[in-house]
């Protein structure tokens, strides 16, 4: 990635979960760290998210899920991204993700898994260090 270009991040709230405090705080922290941030807002279906990814072409997609729907929603998002031939975007999920669900999600290509109490700087570094392009 050319050094003068800002990292572009899409922060998303998939599913019906309205707990958006973390997503908003993260969006702001990423912006303060010099990234270009788009926040989708809540109630995003997998199709909504993939369409936004196609339109905006972000470097990273940060999914925030606290409702327990991660195992159902994340794989669908990954499949739909693949259908669009998108394989160079970092896709991370955070929120409330029990440890035991991580191997399954990792296998589907997701990263991150940051939960309550994580320092924002940790996530900012994670994004910088895990970009695929």
């Amino acid at each position: 990635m050319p050094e003068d270009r800002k990292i572009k991040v899409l922060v998303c709230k998939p599913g019906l979960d309205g707990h958006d405090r973390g997503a908003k705080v993260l969006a702001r922290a990423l912006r303060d760290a010099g990234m270009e941030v788009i926040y989708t807002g809540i109630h995003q279906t997998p199709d909504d998210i993939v369409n936004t990814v196609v339109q905006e072409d972000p470097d990273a997609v940060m999914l925030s899920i606290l409702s327990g729907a991660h195992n159902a929603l994340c794989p669908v998002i990954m499949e739909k991204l693949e259908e669009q031939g998108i394989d160079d975007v970092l896709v991370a999920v955070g929120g409330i993700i029990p440890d035991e669900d991580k191997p399954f999600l990792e296998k589907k290509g997701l990263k991150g898994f940051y939960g309550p109490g994580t320092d924002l700087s940790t996530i900012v570094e994670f994004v910088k260090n895990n970009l695929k392009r």
Partner: protein
Amino acid sequence: MVFMTEFDKIKEDMEEWQNSYPNKKERRKSFRNLSNIDVKRLYTPNDVKELNYELDLGFPGQYPFTRGAYPNMYRGRLWTMRQFAGFGTAEQTNNRYKFLIEHGQTGLSVAFSLHTIYGIEATDQKALGEIGKEGVAIDTLKDMEILFDGIDLSKISTSMTINAPASILLAMYIVTAEKQGHSPEQLRGTIQNDILKEYIAQKSWIFPPEPSMRLIVDTIEYCTKYVPQWYTISISGYHIREAGSTAVQELAFTLADGLAYVEAGIERGLNVDDFAPRLSFFFNSHNNFFEEICKYRAARRIWAKHMKNKYGAKKPESLRLRFHTQTAGVSLTAQEPENNIVRVTLQGLAAVLGGTQSLHTNSFDEALCLPTENAVKIALRTQQIIAQESGVTDTVDPLAGSYYVEWLTNKMEEEAENYFQQINDLGGVIPAIKANFFQKEIANASYKYQQEIENRERTIVAVNQYQQKEPCTVPLLKIDEEVAKEQVNTLNIIKQERDNDKVQENLLKLKEAAKGTENLMPYIMDAIRVYASIGEIINTLKEVFGTYHEDSIF
């Protein structure tokens, strides 16, 4: 000799005292509570010299209710111990309710599945992964009958955390009780029914603000006539706080919402004293002990003053603010979750010292999952220990008269009034929502709070200080994916067995009524009785009311 008042003397002595300790070494430059109010080293009578006991505090159960909603408070009756519970299917949650009642819980509180909260049928693609995860899955009256099976609804009070479809769930509750042989007049409970805070913070809206307000006033009007013991709105600061507001913002925004509902009721032509006694409140209890206590005391005084002076309410019940409290979910840590038991104890104690009417204490594992049976039992026991062992219930409002507590109560009232002015300047609550006023205030406060934690200006034990690397080992409650399949099956069977012509007919009548100005409750009741689903009723109303979309600001 110049006459010296007691206040002058204290002022002089205070200066001398301060000068005697010039090199005071303190751990921090300033001590700020969670509302960013500077807390002084010491409070004296000088900080509350304007306080007039009769006017500002009075007696418990009397105007302005600062000292408590009832004359004898917990000496008469303890607060209702009401654990918010719901997960999986109606049958699973019914078992949890019976477990809680068996262990001494005195009221029910229903957490609904997200698909129920949004009025989406279990069969809808949008419900993918959400069914029964955050609450109990309810689609039709059938589920509600199972949820309360074996629980006598004339004996227990039930709080239902439901907002956009509150009228529908209330109708279901009434019909379920009817089937148990109880009349609506016997029913006691609360629907949250607070749509304004949904736009502000919690986000489970469906329709735009105006038709949503109509539905709320419909329920108020209906209950005033037919379900007189029901609390028609639980005006909620809880979610505002969880979304990141300060305590002062929680106080101010919640009361502003409350007053907006009062205005809407008056606009409908209702007499304020007919419906105001059935409004109740719901606050958060966060980590700063005294700040929380003062918030509750200030809330009662502000409400009483506004109801009396601005809306001309006369009945003491209209002026008396009563509230439920839940300890702050957002304060729970995933790191060393057992420490949460201590946090919850302090938060619960603050709620009790602030005079709460009912209390939910969070379970220690809730930063990780919905609570296990063991975790919820400890949470309930925490309340029972506060109630029965600590002695704090022996006298009413034991902290009154503390210079600090009275000063902070005054300060919080003053800051809330500043917010009322700002909201007023924007044209009221709904215009302020549309201008994203609340949303921005909350987003700023939550970001600031997070930064203060990361800068170590605020300490969260085992999160930013005293951290250990040991992995978390507490057992977690897991919701089986089979729940969703079961729910879809149940819904499909109902749709085969019910009289579908009758369902269509009643939905059509509802739609026509929605276009006019009639009270919609009777139409919703008729649709419920023939097993129309919540999703079907909501979709019918969406056709008339439309839906709401928010600006995604951060």
